Each structure stands twice: as structure tokens, then as C-alpha cells.
């Protein structure tokens, strides 16, 4: 809010929120209209007004919601017009404070995991249109009520970040589409019916049907890009300077997941090894995947393993980390609550300890083995190995001992059906993928810095 007084900010925010709430009201009105027009309607309750029988259907509910949005819009515009920030509908101060206080990387990561788990197990409930629509509405409402907070606004309304916010909504929508169809298909499977896609299996022509559709998509996309360019102009920042780098320095949004890994891993690991494995892993999927079912239709039950691994990798380890990196990582890469001012002077205590230090200093009460001054390279390496033996052992154990153990226990079926090479590839990929959440947990629980720390050769793990 630098250089902008609260009054000016109120005007600014109301200019956005007024139309926003109106749009939401329209969205719900359209929904109500759609439901009202729908042939079969379930009445929530019925009563008689005089002699006229009335049935309260869900269309009514959404009409009420729409009118609530209209009220919100009116309140916002009225307050904004008077330059009165505090009268714009918003979350109460204590709520914002509570959210700020209670969030952090741990809560955020574990929270999203928990949410995803809940969503997975109760997917049949969540994909119900009514429920999904309610969640959809709540998401919008959350955004709207958060906007009058200048700090939240500063982050979310930054032209760079707008696509990320849009991405959250888009992802929610597409996930819902896919999951909803999978749920339907899985149920039909149980009832012995073919998937929906099989049922409407009519053939259409590439020309004109597909090409026509593609052209329409192209036009719509171009129009969106033009409008985007007009409405949200790319910010021109100051000339780059080697003595004065931006704080926070952020990668392009699609790399922010990678940047988040840097918190936990050494650059060579987070910036080179893990991205390589991501690409290699994605390329390897067709060769690893032996599950023939689920082709051409949405299903979860028939491809549970693939589904879970994908959702873990994409939603959990990629998207949520992007959101984290974009919206919640501020100056000095510190974590900031959504309603917290990005104060460059905030300092967080970051004292992390290596496995070797745990072993030598804490457990044995000795100082770390250090090569005597003037000793040769071989001796030095020997000392390093002596210092780090436990970490090296753990890492080697993780990558060498775990695959065979898994092959005989949890992944026995896989090993049988895939053969050695394919199984080992899969195991390696999964282990590398799992190394990130594992490291995160270790960091949070033990302040663990590196399992193997050899800064002498820039080799940390």
C-alpha cells in the first residue's frame, strides 16, 4: 500500500470487487435458471402459500445466493465510493490474524495433503454437483472477502500472480470434471455397465467436426490472450542490477515448485538431478505402465496406483508448491501468511544440523573428524568419508536396499509382472519422488540439513 492512502486503496479494491460480486451473482443466477428449467426437480421442502402449493427447489437456493452477492456488491461499491475501507465486506481482523499465525510451510504442506486425502476418499460426495458448486462458490467468496486486506491484495492482484490464482480455479474445475466422470464410470463398472464414454461411442469426422472445434478453441484462446494483454499489462521493472537483486528473487511461476525444492536440497540435487528425473520419469511412463484398463474413459478404481502417483506428483509436489512459492513466499524466501505484510526485515530462525553433526557431536560428544592441516587429498577424503559414514550408509541403504525389500513386500505384484529392469526403473523413480517429501518431513521434525554433507566437493544430499 506504499504511496496509496487507505481511501485510495478502498476505491481501487471496490473497482475490482463490485463487478466481481456482480459476476458471481450472475453466475449463480444462471445456475438457478438452469436448475429451474431442468425437467426433473427435487424439492427440498414443500409448503402452501395460501392455496398455492410451492416447492422450494435448489434453484431457489442459488437465487438467494445470487441476491446475497448482489448485496455484497452493493455494500462494496457503497463503501468504496466513500473511500471507507473498513466498511467493505471482508474477513474480520482476528480471522486474518489467526490464519497468519497458524500457517507455515508445515501446516500448508500437511494441510494440502490432508485435504487431498479427504477429497480422494470422499470423492463420491465432493463431486456431487451441488457440493462442488457450493465449494466453487466458497472459493470465490474467500477470494472476495480476502481482497480488502491490502497485503492479500498486493500479492494476489499483482499482474504476475493473477494467472496462478486463475490456475487454482481452473484446476479445481478440471479435477472436478475428471473425478466426477471417474466416479460415474466406477459406479457403472460395479453395476456391470460400460463406461459413459463407451455408451455414447458415436464416430465423428476430423473434418469438419474436429478441425472446426479446434478453430473455435483457437479463436477463443486468441481473444482471451488479447483481452489479458489489454487488461493486465506486463509490469516493467527496474533495470537489472548485480548489486541490487529483487527481494524475493523468484523464478517464472511454472518453476516455482523447483525453487521450493531448493529450500530442502542442494542446488545440484534440486536443480539438476530431480528435474532430470521428472523428465525421464514422464518419458518412461508408457514403458512402465502395464495396466491396460482405463483407456479411453475416466476411471480411478481401475488405475489406483497410476492415479495416486500422478496426483501426488502433480497436485501435491508441483501445483501446491507453485502456489506456495508464488503467493506465500516473500522477501528472503520467508514464509508469509496470506494476510501478512511482506516485510523485508522479517527474520526467521533457520538453524539446521547435518546427520554427521548429530552423530558425532550429539551422540558421541566428539568433534567432527577433521583432516590434519597439510594432509594429502587422499587422507582428506578418508576423513570426509569417516565423518559422513552414517549419512552415506543411509542414502545407499535407501536406494540400494529399499527396492529389493519393496519387491518382496508391498510391490511384489509389480515386480512379478514387470520384470527386473522395469521394476527397478519404477522403484528408482518412486524413491526419488519420495525423497522430497521425506526430506521435508525430516527438516521439519529434526531440523535436518543434509544427510550427507560434503561441502568440500559441493556434494550435499
Amino acid at each position: 500500500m506504499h504511496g496509496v492512502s487507505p481511501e485510495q486503496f478502498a476505491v481501487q479494491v471496490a473497482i475490482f470487487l463490485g463487478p466481481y460480486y456482480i459476476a458471481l451473482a450472475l453466475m449463480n443466477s444462471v445456475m438457478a435458471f438452469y436448475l429451474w428449467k431442468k425437467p426433473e426437480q427435487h424439492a427440498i421442502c414443500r409448503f402452501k402459500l395460501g392455496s398455492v402449493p410451492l416447492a422450494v427447489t435448489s434453484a431457489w437456493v442459488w437465487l438467494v445466493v445470487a441476491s446475497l452477492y448482489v448485496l455484497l456488491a452493493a455494500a462494496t461499491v457503497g463503501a468504496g465510493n466513500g473511500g471507507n475501507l473498513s466498511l467493505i465486506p471482508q474477513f474480520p481482523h482476528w480471522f486474518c490474524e489467526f490464519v497468519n499465525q497458524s500457517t507455515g510451510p508445515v501446516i500448508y504442506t500437511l494441510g494440502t495433503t490432508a485435504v487431498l486425502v479427504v477429497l480422494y476418499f470422499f470423492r463420491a460426495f465432493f463431486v456431487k454437483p451441488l457440493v462442488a458448486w457450493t465449494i466453487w462458490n466458497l472459493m470465490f467468496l474467500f477470494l472476495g472477502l480476502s481482497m480488502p486486506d491490502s497485503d492479500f491484495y498486493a500479492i494476489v492482484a499483482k499482474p504476475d500472480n493473477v494467472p496462478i490464482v486463475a490456475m487454482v480455479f481452473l484446476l479445481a474445475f478440471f479435477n472436478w470434471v475428471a473425478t466426477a466422470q471417474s466416479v460415474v464410470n466406477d459406479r457403472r463398472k460395479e453395476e456391470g455397465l460400460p463406461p459413459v464414454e463407451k455408451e455414447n461411442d458415436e464416430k465423428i469426422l476430423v473434418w469438419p467436426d474436429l478441425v472446426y472445434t479446434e478453430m473455435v478453441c483457437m479463436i477463443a484462446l486468441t481473444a482471451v490472450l488479447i483481452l489479458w494483454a489489454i487488461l493486465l499489462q506486463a509490469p516493467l521493472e527496474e533495470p537489472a542490477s548485480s548489486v541490487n537483486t529483487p527481494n524475493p528473487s523468484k523464478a517464472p511461476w511454472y518453476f516455482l515448485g523447483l525453487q521450493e525444492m531448493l529450500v530442502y536440497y542442494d542446488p545440484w540435487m534440486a536443480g539438476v538431478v530431480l528435474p532430470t528425473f521428472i523428465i525421464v520419469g514422464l518419458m518412461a511412463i508408457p514403458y512402465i505402465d502395464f495396466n491396460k484398463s482405463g483407456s479411453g474413459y475416466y476411471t480411478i478404481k481401475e488405475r489406483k496406483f497410476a492415479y495416486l502417483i500422478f496426483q501426488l506428483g502433480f497436485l501435491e509436489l508441483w501445483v501446491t508448491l507453485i502456489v506456495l512459492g508464488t503467493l506465500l513466499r516473500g522477501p528472503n524466501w520467508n514464509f508469509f501468511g496470506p494476510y501478512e505484510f511482506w516485510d523485508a526485515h522479517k527474520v526467521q530462525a533457520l538453524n539446521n544440523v547435518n546427520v554427521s553433526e548429530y552423530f558425532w557431536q550429539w551422540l558421541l560428544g566428539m568433534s567432527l573428524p577433521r583432516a590434519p592441516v597439510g594432509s594429502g587429498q587422499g587422507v582428506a577424503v578418508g576423513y570426509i568419508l569417516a565423518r559422513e559414514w552414517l549419512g552415506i550408509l543411509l542414502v545407499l541403504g535407501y536406494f540400494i536396499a529399499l527396492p529389493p525389500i519393496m519387491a518382496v513386500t508391498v510391490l511384489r505384484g509389480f515386480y512379478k509382472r514387470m520384470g527386473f529392469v522395469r521394476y527397478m526403473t519404477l522403484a528408482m523413480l518412486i524413491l526419488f519422488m519420495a525423497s522430497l517429501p521425506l526430506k521435508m518431513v525430516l527438516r521439519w521434525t529434526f531440523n535436518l540439513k543434509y544427510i550427507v554433507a560434503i561441502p568440500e566437493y559441493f556434494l550435499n544430499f
Partner: protein
Amino acid sequence: MHVVFGVSSLIMLISTVWMLEKDHNREWRRWQMKDRGKERWQHASRLAETSAQSHAALKGLKRQLAEASSSRIDHALIQQVKDFVQAEDARLAGQGAPPKSAEASLATIEKELADLEPLADEAAAAREAVTAAKKSAHDAVNTKLAAQKDPAQRDALPKLTQDSKSRLHELQQKVQQRDKAEQNAGRGRKQLLAAMNKIIGEAKRREDAFTVQKKFVAADHTARVSEHGIAVGEGLPAEQIDKIQVEIDSLAQKMTDLDDQVGNAKDYRVRVETVRREIEKGTTEIEKELAAVQAELNRIADNRDKNSWNVGEWLARRPILNALYDGNIRIEQTWLPDIKINYNFSEVPRYDRCITCHRSIDKTAPGSPVEPAFPALKDKQRQRVVELATPSKEPEIAVSDEGVVQVPTLESVYGLTIAGSGQIDHYAVTVQYVTAKSLAAAAGLQLGDIIREINGGRVYSNDDVEQYLLDNAHWGESLKLTIRRGLGSPYTSHPRLDLYVGSMSPHKKNDMGCTICHDGQGSATDFKWASHTPDNPKEADEWSKKHGWFDNHHWIFPMTPDRFIESNCLKCHHEVAELEPSERFPEPPAPKLVKGYHLIRQYGCFGCHDVNGYDGPTKRIGPDMRLEPNYHEVAAAVLRDNGLTDDERESAATLVHSPEVNSIRHELYQAIRRDAELAEAGNADGQPRLSAASHKLADLLKDVETPGRLRKAGPSLRYIASKVQYPWLYSWIRKPSDFRSSTRMPQFFGLHEHLEKHIKAFPDGQGNPAGLTELEYTRRFERIEILALARFLLNNSSKFDYLNPPAEVTTEPSPERGKWLFESRGCLACHSHREFPGIASTQGPNLSEVSAKFDSESGRRWLYSWIKQPHRYHPRTVMPDLYLNPIVETDPTGQPTGVVTDPVADLVAYLMGVPSDWKPHDVPAETLTADEKLALKDLAAEWLSASFPRKRAERYANEGIPAAQAANIKGDERMLVDLNDENRVAKQLDYVARRSISRYGCFGCHDVPGQEAAKPIGTALTEWGRKEPSKLAFENITKFLSTHGVDDVTEQLDEQAVNEHAGEDHASGAHAGNGHHGVDPLDYDDDTGYYLQALNGHHRQGFIWQKLRQPRSYDYQKTRNKRYDERLRMPLFPLDIEEREAVITFVLGLVNEAPAEKFVYLPDIRQEAIMQGRHVLHKYNCGGCHVLDMERWQFGIEPDWFEEPPIKPEFPFLHSEPSGEEIAKSLELDHRGLLNVTLHGMPVMSEETGQPNLVDEDGVPIEPDDDESEPFYEFTLYRNTVVAGYERKVGVQNLLIPAAHAGGGPKNGREFPANGGDLARYLFPRVIAQEHKTNPQAKGSEAWGWLPPPLIGEGKKVRTEWLHGFLMDPTAIRPAVVLRMPNFHMSSDEASALVNYFAAKDNADWPYEYSERRRDAYLTQLDQAHPEWMDNAMKILTDSNYCTKCHAVGDFFPKGAIKTQGPQLANVYQRLRPTYMRNWTASPSHILPYTGMPVNIPFDPNAPHLGGVNQALFPGTSVDQLDGLVDLLMNYDDYTARQTTIKSMVKESSPAEGGEQAAEAPEPRPDQSASDLPAPALR
């Protein structure tokens, strides 16, 4: 799907169109179109004005033309034509050629001539009839109007109406008749002329025919001549050749004939043509005038059309078409390849596109090269109220020439025209033009003024104006018009076109662009992206609403706000002195910046903050403000060493006073180094004599690469114990402004606004058993610190030998005498004192209260010594030695009365006698109480904990540092070794004091013993103007301001105030809400609001503002987690709001961004000398006494105001004739119709008050209560000036100049004040009063001669070598002067700088000047030509009527009052330049108008010998006499030397002794020996 396709395509189409629209209609287009509209409006208005002005002229001219072309034709002229025709006919007949008769034409002419006469008469009669009819119609109409208003005449009304109607009708008929008659007559004239043209045409035809014939014959002739030549060459027979010759001859004859014919025909034609021209003469001249008027109108109309709408441009401006041609709307830019902008990784040329919108930025007013066409006025100045008088009675209705009734209009009544539309805002009611000398012009209305209200009523349309001014006006009562004048940005011109942008300015638009001075994003063409910066929060608010402005953090060079615009001058003007007002730019170019510079110099900010102007030894990057190397302090410290040899001691003593003498410094350095080497080498080569401390100091004597130049701002503390006592010193350190509110010493202690009363310094029980609050904790320590500092300074002071009054003094000191001495001997030039309210200089301290400071015997003695010889106490002081030697009193006859007074003692008596009620208060005893001892221990522990762990620090503070540790300890901690019960307190105090001095950096301003090697403690400011705001610690400042308020807290010691502030919880803090936003800038005035906004936005402007206001406030809520020595230590300087801003302006200009060398200000050698001189002038405050530049009055005046000056005979060499160009320039009228005059000099001052005399038109002084008379000033010129066509010379006549009604200065102009001379002006009435006590007849006008002289023309006056010597060691010159030039002990370099300054300023030669008059060749020649030249001159010199009447010459001293005496003449040859001496003697008042010196050798071209003195004294003309006198004075030494003989004094040496030497002695050259001169007359 088709619907989807349709919809998406539609969206695509709309978005594409939208994109095109957005891309095309960018902001600058709108501005540019509006600016074109403004230009069009301007031209249209000027067109309307010009055509209205020329309307009458056009009409008159047309009438004249009609009259002229219908007038009679003189018969005699026609007769002439007839005669010509007949003569020609006769001539042709004589040649046998049948005359082509002009009969027909002649007949027509005669007929028309006859017809014309009655017609012309008729026309004339018709004209008269019109005049009569017009008068009667006018009367009739007005009678009717009168009747309409008069109820009594109602009955007669119908008849009157009828009457007026018929009269008007009649008039119209008469006009028609007149026009018809004129047409008829005109037709007749035309036919007559046509006939005449026929005659001319015929003559021309004949002329042409002959010419053609001649051409053919000539061609034949040439051909034959060539044929003849070929024939001769081929050797053809003679007869053939002859034959050709015959042909040639005949052709030649033909040519001659034809020539004759052509000539005749031409003569004839020309004669007739002359007659025709004579007939047409009346009309052609009128036609020419008409064409000229029309051409001017067409020119303006063309300009208007250029900015008007037209189809072609409109089409070209459409998108896409626009790519082919821009339709005159385009982005304009200045490309600056050499003025680069730093983009961190590369330096990029600037493209300044500012002029795209600011199109009129370089437009000047018509007729002026520097005055802006569209002045940029501040918002407050734009809004104004004017009073418009109405006619005393209702205006009459006029009837036009054409018989049309003209109702009074705004134009006819007020001379006011309202435009159809506004300039920028279409609907604004705008003045189109104002007729000269009308009521509107008298009210001061101007073209472009927007009328907003009339008598409080809002004006919405042009009709409203008519309503108010005509229909509803009360005639005779004036109306109040609220108007808005001028245009807003970007339509205005640059306000200083003389300095910037303009083609005549040093910063031309195309060379400099805009952003090098203004900063901002030059490439941008949108308001918000150009990084405009508002000057206050209201403006910011307005901008963000109007233009979508926002504070763009991403552009690192935001535009400099208006208040700091001068900062950027420093990029190129590193010396600052060149930014002071000068001859060329009398309007100060950068007053705020210069003020800031001088404040920083005065307050000595550079003592702590390095401002380095060099990057490497020669590369300049900005202003250089650094301390001089402290050689003198080192020398003073070395002097304390007892081991010094006598030579070394002398060297050191010299260095103390003259540290600039490098050779001595090198010697001393070498000597100490040698001794130090002895010490390093051990005992082998002998014992070192000097102490280790001295050895360490040696390195400080080394050469410094580009040394700083500034002296420390404060006095030396080396002998402080001899000056003041403990209680005063304690309270001074505690709070300097307590004793002297105007002091420059800042306050270090008691700055507690940031401390909270209710917050404990530490949690209870953790080192804070007493439960002290932060405030108590700090106070406890500060008390000890101050005490320790005071005791340290007193204990470490060296012994000072006081001076005692001289023995010859016979009287007791007298405060009365002292008071007059204080007033008149120059003290007030630098010091102020409450008993002398008329003058307040800030160079030295205010001395009102010194009696309280020196309230002891030692203090009194110190004061005596200080006044007598200031440099004895502090070698680097700028306080001069005033030569206050004992005064031998004399009676009126000049005989000593036996009374000898001591002026110094008198001054001391006076200063100490002025009572002061100031007393030191709350000063703790010098010996400590138990509590204080405890606090002292705690404080010592606090300091120690910076180097030792806390627990050990506590122990060391109490028990001392064990001797075993001593070897490892460096720095001040060594003081604490060997602590025992006796010395504990003393040592702890010593330690604490040393730490405090280091911490607060006392040595930045003072010479503190033992701190010679200390380095400045503050942040370097060299690049502060670009300091990264993220590197500034804003800490909790917004919270502080929101809880403590934004008022200036000056009374820091007032416990009550601090506590109240701390306890309050302002409402403003609560409404901020978000924690990081404290106060709302909009709640404060513009200035405070600006800085608060800057603080909120974390800009450095806000940081430094708060740092200067409340330096410790950044420690708010921070001290609890800091050690005591980590706290902020910036002291509080007593700056007021404006001074603070001036300092900020300067500091923000320190950016280290010097552009390419060619842009950095590189003065030529004269300007350089002037700049360097200014530094010295400022340093020693020369302007305190002397006028350095006279006042400059610049004003406009009626062209006929000044009369022709009287002509006085003057010596030929004094005569000057202004050039024609100068005269023409002095007669030019500006757009106001006034002459522009610039005069240098000063108004005549009143002898009683010292204020400029106001006189009436006849020169009689105006009484103060006289409001009736028009006031005038008499102005004394100090520079010859061409005014109104004549040169006005100095000393001839004072000019009478109309005074401005409000305040001083001239009417229609302004005065630029004199530079310096405050004391002279202050003393002027006082010395007259003093003189009148003893000599009531004394002439007040000569009193200027008793005061420090104005240094005008000093460079041309004195010889450089003499001035240099004089400045180093001044001697008394003029006995009449009441005070003497003091001795500043300046260095030779400084004296040279001053000498060069004066010479450069007057364009005189320096460093050497050549004067022929003293050369032997000249003298030899003179003696040969005029053997008695010098002796005769001596007769004039010694004649009691002339020079010796007033001047001493050699051992002769004139009698008479001292006030009438002039300087000694025997040594003027050393002082004055010969030309000056000649001009001065010839006419003294031409040089100094006030001088009492008369013209001794008058010049009169008509008198015998051209005037001059008695021939008996000096035979010759007055010019010769003058020359003789000058020659004598210039060679006075030589002349007198010849009067004595040395030969007789030298005893003849015996050959045995001197033979050898005599042989070796060179032969005396003939010209060296006076005896060998060939002039026996000299004996």
C-alpha cells in the same frame, strides 16, 4: 457449435478492435491535440485582436482610398501630357515617320477630365452630407433613448422614434449616394488613366520595336566584323576587305540611329509615366499600407490554420493510415547520445520524449528571447481577483458610419472580448483580448484569463458576463472578477528560459534534454509511466485520480519533485559557487541548493560525513567537502613533546599557524621519522628524543592526495580550561542552545523523544535492580558522560599565556567607549548582539550573553587575549586580528591630550558589562556522589562490554584490567589498567570521556587534544542521493510518528513533554489499521505531508527529513535490545524548516553521476578565478563590511520618462560613445510598451535612518505619513549605462525612479539586492550622527568615505601584487575611515584567490600588470622631451590648494579634521594601476559618486590650455598636467630617490680593502644611476 463459433468470433473481433483502439489512442495524443487546440486558440485570439485593432485602420484606409480615387486631377498634369504628346508627334514628324497619333487617347483624357470635375465635387459634397446626416442620426437616436428612460417624455416618444428612424434612413441613403458618386468619379478617373496607359503602351511598343530592330542589326554587325577578321587572316584581296568594311560601317551607323530612336521613345514613355504616377500617388500609398495590414492578418491566420482541423490530417490520423503519414501528431523526442543513463550493466543514450506533451516548453513571449510565452504559475498565483471599474454613467449608443445603430458591447464599453470557447476547457469563459487603454486593461485583465465569478456570482457562459457587466451593472461602481490566469502543465513554457531549454540559455533543449535535470522516465509518453513526482500529498491524490498516477517503485530515477529540483544542478556544478547570482543571471539560479551548501559548511556536517568530490586524484564526481588535513593539530600535539630540538620546535610552531607551508611540514616529518627509526632500531644507534605518541603522529604529516579544503567548524578545545569554567562547560555540552539559542553546535544529549517512560530498560532483576525505565536509565548515563567530557576537556587543556594590557594605557576601561568600538570597529559585521538590533550577521556567534560565559577572572583575561589576538588561541579561526592598538586621544587640533585608551579593554568592559540572566543550572558537582560513582562504573562496564564478555566487563570496570592483560589491550581501554581506590574514579571518567568523544565524534568540529588521528565517524554522503532505500534503517519510525505526533520537538529536556508524548496513544495510530502505515500525509500541510508520504513510501527524502528533525527517533522501541554504545548518536542541529529542506536538497544532489566531461561545468580562467574567490569571500565574510556587487534594479518605464542628460566637458580618454546598437536596444519597447532598464548602483540613503530616501517628483523628501504623493527614489549609478538612448554616466546625476507602492524597489520591476555591505549600510547613519557630535558641519554625503569602501572596480583599481600583500598584512590607507581592514591571517593561496577574483571580475590583467609609465624607456623619453615635467608636477602636488590640502605626502601631513583627509600619496605607485589613477584624478566622482575628492585639474575644451591649473605651476594643457601628475605619482620613489645622494654617505674605501671587490663589481649601467640621467633639471 455454430453459436459458439459466432460468439467467440465476435469476442475476437471486439477484442481486436479494442486492442487497436488502446494501442492507437495513447495518452500523449490527447495532450498533443489539446495543445494544438491551445495554439489555434492563441492564434485565433491574436488574429481577432489584430483585426480589431486594424479594423479601424483598414476602414480608414479604405475610406481614404475611396476619397483619393474619386478626387479631382490637376489640369496642369494633363497639360503636361498633352505637351509631351505633341512634342513627340512633332519629333516623329520631323523624322518623316508618320506619327501614330495619340489623338484619340488625348481626346478621351480631356473628356474624362472635364467629366471628372463635377463628379468629384459631387462625391465631396456627398461625403459632407453623410457627416451631417450621421451627426443628426446620432443625436436623434440618443434623444430617443433618453426619452425612453424619461417618463415625462413618453408622449413625445413615437414622434422621436419616427424621427430617429427617418434620420437613420436618411443617413443610409446619403451613404449610398456618396458611394455612388464616388464610384462614378472613380470610374472617370480610371478611364482617364486607361487612356493615359494607352499612350504609354504605344510608346512602349515603339521602344520595343526599335530595340528588336537594333538587335538584328547588331547581330549582323558582329557577323561582318568576324568575317572581316577571317578575310584579313586568309589574306584576301584588299578590295574585298574594304567592301566588308563598308558594310560594317553602314551597320554601325544604323545601330547609332536605332539607339537614338530607342532613347527617344523611352524618354517619352518615362515622362508620361511620371505624370501618371503623380496622378496615382495618393492611391498607391494607401494601397501599400492596406496590403501591409492585410499581410500581417494573413500571417496570423496562416498560423491559426496550421493548427486547425483539416480533412487530410484527420484522415492521416486514423489507425493504420497513420503509419503512412502521422497527420502532424507525433512523438517528439530529443536524442542525447552523450548524456547517458545508467542501466547498471550499460550506459544508454537518453531519449527524452517529454516534449511530446510539453510542446510549448521552449516558447518565448513575442519579442523576448527569455520570457516564457506561457508562464507557469503556481496554483495559488493562478487564482486571483481583479477589480474592474465601470463607466461613470450608462454608455451611449453609437451610430456607425454605415448608419447602423451600435448597442454598447463589452468591447465598446470595457475593451473586453470574450472568446467563443476556452483554450483548454472548451466551456471556460475566456478573455479573447483586451483593448489597450480600456477599462479591462486598467483592471489588468489579459488574453486567456478565465472569468469564473463576477461579484461572487458564478459565470457559466459568455452571456453571463454580459448580464453582469452590461445589463445589471451599477454604473460607476467597480466589479470584482475572480479569474484564473495562465495554463496548467503541460501547456506552459519553462519558467527559466534564460537558464534552461531556451536557445539563448546555457542548457539548450537539444543539448541537454529534460531528464538529466528533472530525472524521470524520459522514454515514457504516459503521465504515470513518466514517473512524475508530486510535490505534496494533495497533488499526489489529485494526480492519481486524474491521471492514474502511482508511486512506481520500479523506476529508480523518479522525477525530482519541485522542492528538490535544484539538487540535480550538483551533477555538473561541483563548485556550487557558480550557482550564485551573477552578472548574467541576476535571478539566483539555485538559491535553495546554495543555501544548503552554506549551511553544511557552517554547521560542519563534513566533520563527520565524508563528502568526497573526487574519484581518484583528478576525476571530479561531485562537490568536494572534506576537512583539511589536520597538520596544524598534529603540530600542536607534537609541540607538547619536550624532546624537540629548537629547530623542530620552530617548525612545529610555524605549522600550527601556517599548515600550508609544505617544505616545513616535510622537514618536520623527516625529523620525527628519523627519530622513530632510532626507536625501532633499538638502542644501537642512540636514544630517541621524542615520545612514542609523537612518532605515531608523524604519519599524519604525510602528503595527502587531493587534500580537503575545509576547516573544522568549531573552535579549538586545546586550551579550553583557560577560557571557561566547569559549570558553563557542563551545561553547554548538555544543551548548547540553552545558553545561546542561535548556536550551530548541535545537541547530543537529552534527545529522549524516542524513549518510553513506562518501559523498563531491562527486565527487572537482569542488571536492572532499581527497576529503571529507559528514560531514567539513559539520563543516568548521559549525566555521567557530560560530566566526564567536561572534566576531560578541562584536565587535558594546555596552558595558555594570556595577553596583558600594554603599559602605555593611561585610563580605565570604559563600557561606553567599548560600545561604540563594538559597533564601529567591525564586530557587527560577523557577530550579532541584542543591543544592536539593526544588524544580525550569523558568521560569528551572538555575543549578547558572553558575560555569563566568561564570568570569572580567567574568562575575562581570555576574552581580552582573544579579541586582541584571536590566532594566538586558535590558529585556524576566521576571526581576524582587528589591530586594536592603544589609541592616543587627540584634541581637535590634532595634538595628543595625553590620554591613551586601550580599545580591547574597552570592548571587554562593554561585553562583560551587558548583564545576562543566564546561569548554569542542574550542574552536578565535579566530585561524584556514591550514586554517580555507581553509574560511572556501570557506564564503563557498558562501554567495555563492546570488547569483553559482559561479566568480565563488569569486573574490569570495577577492578580495572589486570596488568597481565595490559599488553594485549589497545585503545582507550588502556586507561583502565592499574585501577586502585585513589585513581578509580578519575580513570573511569577518563575512559568514559575518551569513549564518548570517539562515539560522538567531537573531533569532527573541534581540535580535541589526543584525537589528531581520529577519522570521521558518520556515513559518507558522497552518493547518498542514490542510496538504496532498502539500506536505510527506517525501523519503527511510522509507529513512532503515529504515537508521538509529527510536531517538531525542540524542548527535549522537558521531562513533562516527553512523558506526555510517551503516554499518549494517538487516534491517528489506530486508524492506520495495518500496522505498517502510520500517519496519513493528507492530514498535514503540504511540506510535512510530503515528507510523511516519503517516509511511508520508504523514500530517502523522508528518511533524511526525520533524521534531521529527530535524529534519535529511529531508535524508537529499539534501545532495549541494543547496547548503550550501539544507540544512534546523530545530534540535533537547530535547523528551521526551510534550512532543513535546503540541507536535504544539497544532500540529495550528491549522486556521483557526473555526465560526460563536456557537460560538466568547466569555467574559463576568469570564471574559475571568480568562483575560487567566492569561496574565500564567504569564508572570511568579506561581504559583511564591503559591498561586492551593487544593487541591480531592473524595471520598465515610460519611454519619455528620462530626460536628456546634461553634457559636461570631459577628458578625451574618459569620453565614451555608446554604439548605435546599444542605443537602439535601449530604445526598444517591450510588450507592455515600456522601456526596459537595468541599473547598477544604489538608492540615495537617508542620513538619519540609513533607509532609501523616498522623494516626490521634484526630489523633495516625502513625509512618512504622506500617502498622496507619488513616491520616487533617487538612484545613484555605479556603472555607466545606456538608458533611453543616452549614456548615463556615474557621478553626473542621480536618476529619479518611480517607487513600487508596496515595499522597496522600482515600479514595474524588481530590485536585486546588493551583495554584501551590511555593516557599511548599518553604520552610515551612525557615523554621521557620531561625527555631528564633534563637527555639526560634516557633510553626510561623504560619510560613505568613512566606511569600508565598496569593492566595485577593485580589479581595475589596484595592482595585484599590492593587493596580495595588503590582504596578507593590511596597512591603514585612509585616515578618515572609522575602522581598519583587519588581518585574517589568510594563506597566500587565499589572498591570491581574492586578488584573482577582483581582477577577473573587472576584466583586468592578472596575475601581472604591465605599466609603461614606470619603465625607464618611457621616463628617458619624457625627460628628453620635457625636462621639467616631473618638477612641475611636483609643484602641483605640493601646492597647498591641491593635493596636499587633504593628502599626506611623504613626511608632510595636512592639517584639518581627520575625516577630510585622504590617503598618503607617497606610496600610491605601489597600490594603484596608472590608468585608474589618471581616470580617478581626472574625475573622481565618475568612479565613486560619493567621494569628497574634488576635480583638481578641470577640463574645458573652450578654455585656453583646455582648462587646467595655473600655468605657473605646470605649463601645458590640462591633459599634460594630469599626465604629469600621474607620472610623478607613479614614479614617486624614483623621483625622491634622485633628490638624495648616497654617494656622499659612502666613505671611499681604501684600495687595499675594497680593490678586489670593486674590480668584480659590475659596471654600473647608465640608466641605473640617477646621476647619469641626462636631465640636470631634476637636481
